[in-house]
């Protein structure tokens, strides 16, 4: 199992559920949680900046309090963060067009129960296992 | 006198660099047609499905095996050429932890038992950790791969001296015949036919090059009884 470094940005319980499912599928990875764009930004570029910086972001763009779209915009405009791999979760097509403009890696229907969560994150984990990332100290 | 010496030194350095670049380019550029051969033989094999000519099928299998072997030999060459150039960061590691991690990584079957005798005072050291990991991994992997019994025992001893860590890795396997002991560090040399154990024979060559890089020594110790023991010393302070 590849050791992946991920941030999930979603409302508390949803985020925790996603993290639990992901770690069950791939216990070698590290998953950070952020409730909203502010918390996420702190992890990416602020007071609680992570080191090494995760290369993978999973964010819900439709939950109001999460402010996913605002975060996407900030990430893509930041010189060091713009190359992060972003997967967008959504429970509707509302922001799909907008989100796709940010050159995201994928737009995924948010799984609503454990069974579909397991399916979604297994496929995501498999995909992440076959792609290459540049070595840590370079990005 | 000094001028001549420095001239020779420069020539030597230039030659070394050229050698390493050569190895890298050769193994890199040769991969492309090799990959094409591997792929095309797979297509033909696939298209032959349903064909009951067992000999053709068997021959394709043979060819793919040789292609795979060529690939791993090239990978070994690439790795060898990179020993002096990549993963040269020094960082702190715990020696016992590192050894146990390597043991875990190299163990793919449940019948392997490790026995440790670690007598060191300074467990943590700042060193070329990735390189040490590679040496340990290769030696342990060899011990497991070339074993001939159902149960495999590997004994790892670490002693600390003033200037270095002395590692000994011993197994209770078939041992290495006296006649070939001089050749084992040669690249691509394997004791048994490559058809029996699929290995490139480059593991020890890489170990030797790394140990030399850090200023240590490595040797095959002809032990009492059966089994193989490799000893190597790893200096505490490494100056590249």
């Amino acid at each position, binding site marked *: 199992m590849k050791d992946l470094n991920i941030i999930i940005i979603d409302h508390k319980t949803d985020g925790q559920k996603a993290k639990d499912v992901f770690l069950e599928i791939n216990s070698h990875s590290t998953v950070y949680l952020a409730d909203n764009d502010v918390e996420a930004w702190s992890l990416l570029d602020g007071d609680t900046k992570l080191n090494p910086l995760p290369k993978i972001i999973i964010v819900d763009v439709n939950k109001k309090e999460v402010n996913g779209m605002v975060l996407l915009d900030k990430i893509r405009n930041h010189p060091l963060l*713009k190359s992060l791999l972003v997967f967008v979760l959504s429970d509707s097509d509302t922001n799909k067009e907008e989100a796709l403009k940010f050159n995201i*890696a994928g*737009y995924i229907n948010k799984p609503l129960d454990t069974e579909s969560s397991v399916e*979604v994150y297994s496929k995501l984990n*498999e995909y992440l296992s076959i*792609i290459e990332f540049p*070595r840590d100290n370079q990005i | 006198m000094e001028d001549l010496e420095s001239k020779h030194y420069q020539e030597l350095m230039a030659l070394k660099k050229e050698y390493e670049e050569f190895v890298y380019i050769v193994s890199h550029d040769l991969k492309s047609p090799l990959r094409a051969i591997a792929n095309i033989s797979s297509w033909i094999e696939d298209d032959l499905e349903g064909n009951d000519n067992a000999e053709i099928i068997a021959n394709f299998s043979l060819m793919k095996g040789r292609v795979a072997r060529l690939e791993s030999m090239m990978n070994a060459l690439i790795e060898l050429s990179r020993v002096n150039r990549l993963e040269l960061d020094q960082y702190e590691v715990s020696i016992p932890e590192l050894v146990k991690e390597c043991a875990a990584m190299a163990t793919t079957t449940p019948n392997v038992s490790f026995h440790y005798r670690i007598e060191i005072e300074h467990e943590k050291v700042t060193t070329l950790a990735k390189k040490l990991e590679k040496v340990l991994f290769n030696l342990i992997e060899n011990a497991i791969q070339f074993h001939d019994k159902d149960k495999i025992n590997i004994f790892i001893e670490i002693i600390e001296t003033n200037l270095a860590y002395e590692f000994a890795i011993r197994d209770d396997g078939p041992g290495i015949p006296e006649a070939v002991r001089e050749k084992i560090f040669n690249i691509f040399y394997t004791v048994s036919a490559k058809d029996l154990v699929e290995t490139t024979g480059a593991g020890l060559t890489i170990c030797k090059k790394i140990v030399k890089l850090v200023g240590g020594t490595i040797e095959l110790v002809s032990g009492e009884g059966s089994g193989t023991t490799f000893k190597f010393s790893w200096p505490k302070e490494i100056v590249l």
Partner: protein
Amino acid sequence: MMISKLVNILLVEDDEVDVMNVKRAFSKNKIENPLYVAGNGVEALALLNDPDVPMPKIIILDINMPKMNGIEFLRLVRQNDKFKNISVFVMTTSNEDSDKINAYDLNVAGYILKPLSFEKFLSSVSTLKDYWKLCEM
């Protein structure tokens, strides 16, 4: 919400064996999307700008190609708003960090190394197909 319309895929690859690999791997994995092939960046741009050619949603991109390599091509694509929604998957033999960094800087959706064996390639394509289905591409 499973819409199964087959999006167009553009393969940008100069090596004919690699093109055949992709075609065979697609066929074995029952990927039936229309596949367009360009031999280098220049040809690919021409295809993208051709009004008679339907816009692809997925580009599979090699890096080392004559006339215009993959990174240069991608740079031009990303500068053009017309091509905003296209997902790019790099498929290359290059293991160089510089290529990976350049690719992700230009927001590729993934960077895949071409494996030596066809079997491994089949498996990677299978994973890719599952991922495309996941993202409803």
